[in-house]
């Protein structure tokens, strides 16, 4: 069940979603069974994050506007990276920025730390009109190309949900040299407090995550996988091996688990073991072979 992204061989197709993992969780898990650890997004400048409430749960799912507090690449290297290095899994560092050049600078300042980089391009582009970099194929191309120019490690472009054409965005990332695309980030939302008209989050808008976004992201993964040759890493509402299989069946090569890590800290391990025992039961060794069998889900 291993997966290869550029030079990097991943032990399994399951890894955490950025922001939904930390060494604090990694220490409770058999990380060897997972593909990688993925860090919370690292920005160039230090950031405090958003005011409370930073997250909440509504019937549609979990909504967060943590706002990505960051200590910058140097703060990350000093305070956080050592704990990641202690985990027995490669570290993929998530990088954010407010302009294509910032991603490049973060990648450089990381000085070779990490086994690969995931570019969180669901960030407003302050170079232009404040639209998300990842929803603008040109800005996305520039961002990926700039990072590509400064590293030989795998580069993954993590695309936003709210795009006019995910195929176009995925192609822009691939053409700029991305080794994989991750589809997708959370679904922008404005949750209100139940029983009042007050915004439930300090930042008003946040990202909706969890099982209910899976049908939305499944379509995006399907379209992206048809559009590009590089692997597609699916992310959105995965809590079980069956959910992972849904994405694999529409063309994903690997999956990320976010919100389910909160519900059940063992979620990622359950997914990986579930996939493995599916393969065992079907007498196959690869996921692509498993998908060719007559699968029924729970």
């Amino acid at each position, binding site marked *: 069940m291993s997966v290869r992204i550029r030079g990097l061989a991943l032990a399994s197709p399951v890894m955490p979603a950025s922001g939904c993992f930390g060494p604090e969780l990694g220490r409770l898990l058999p990380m060897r069974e997972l593909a990688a650890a993925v860090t919370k997004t690292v920005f160039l400048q230090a950031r405090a994050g958003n005011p409370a409430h*930073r997250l909440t749960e509504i019937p549609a799912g979990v909504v967060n506007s943590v706002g990505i507090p960051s200590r910058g690449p140097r703060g990350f290297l000093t305070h956080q990276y050592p704990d990641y290095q202690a985990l027995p899994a490669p570290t993929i560092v998530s990088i954010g920025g407010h302009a294509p050049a910032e991603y490049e600078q973060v990648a450089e300042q990381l000085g070779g730390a990490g086994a690969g980089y995931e570019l969180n391009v669901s960030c407003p582009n302050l170079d232009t009109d404040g639209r998300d970099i990842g929803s603008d194929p040109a800005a996305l191309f520039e961002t990926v190309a700039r990072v590509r120019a400064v590293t030989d490690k795998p580069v993954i472009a993590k695309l936003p949900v709210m795009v006019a054409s995910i195929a176009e965005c995925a192609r822009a990332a691939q053409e700029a040299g991305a080794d994989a695309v991750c589809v997708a980030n959370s679904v922008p939302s404005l949750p209100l407090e139940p029983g009042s008209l007050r915004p439930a989050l300090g930042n008003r808008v946040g990202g909706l995550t969890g099982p209910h976004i899976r049908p939305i992201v499944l379509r995006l993964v399907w379209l992206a996988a048809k559009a590009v040759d590089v692997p597609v890493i699916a992310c959105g509402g995965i809590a079980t091996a069956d959910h992972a299989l849904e994405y694999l069946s529409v063309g994903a090569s690997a999956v990320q688990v976010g919100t389910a890590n909160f519900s059940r800290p063992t979620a990622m391990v359950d997914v990986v073991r579930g996939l493995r025992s599916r393969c065992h039961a079907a007498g196959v060794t690869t996921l692509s072979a498993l998908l060719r069998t007559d699968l029924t889900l729970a």
Partner: protein
Amino acid sequence: MDVLPTRDRPTPACDPAVVVGHTPLAPAIHRLVLRAARVAATAQAGQFVMLSVPQAAGELIQLPRPMAVHRRRPGGDIEVVYNVQGRGTEALSRVRPGDSLLVTGPLGRGFDLPATAGPLLAIGRGIGVCSFMTLVEDASAAGIPSTVVLSARTDDRVIGRSDCAELGAEALAVTDLDGTSAVEALDRRLAARFADRAPGLVVVCGSHRLTALAMTLARRWRVPLQVSVEAHMACGLGYCHGCALPRPADPGREGPLVCFDGPVFAVQGSPGAPA
């Protein structure tokens, strides 16, 4: 909020726990008894757990809910007392003895009880009382006398009476209905109660007005004041950054994490609080 000094704490784990008891205590308030031997054995006073609510009748609750460890029982049980607030606690109220739910913990940085100082004064409102009953347990075990203010809207909503009785703590139940919970009344009553000997530690939870009162008292007596605070949480472990407090003095930096640096903090400006 000032972060209390670092100290050793038990390693948290995530285990299924069987519900061994679930009973109503007061309007919309329930006591949940869980077989959670590791937490019962290792939780420090003021620590909490994250309870993953099982999927009852199809309703999916995704985030676990933070709940104070109200009591640690020698037999390996923990007690949680909770208020039905929204969808999560509503669904939690439908779990039945024999059901199993995931418990992550023990979590957070608890209370610091000075070993040698005077008695403990714990002031709680409603289920706020549950954040510090483990501290009363520790005080009781250490032979330190405790006085516990149990404040509530009405008498039937007073939480903690039986716990105090069991732990030999003095319980002062005060209610809005008879006016005894009013800040001025309580101030006078506690001033009289501790006229001879000031407490060695004041702790508070569950009400801004009571925290303000506790601050006045702590300053007057020059004793440390610790408070247990709440925040919306996703992980409880310190990695999601959902629970950060603001840092008014330095708004460009993230404040302490309630789940990791708290939930117990020294109240800023209270006697003996970290600089």
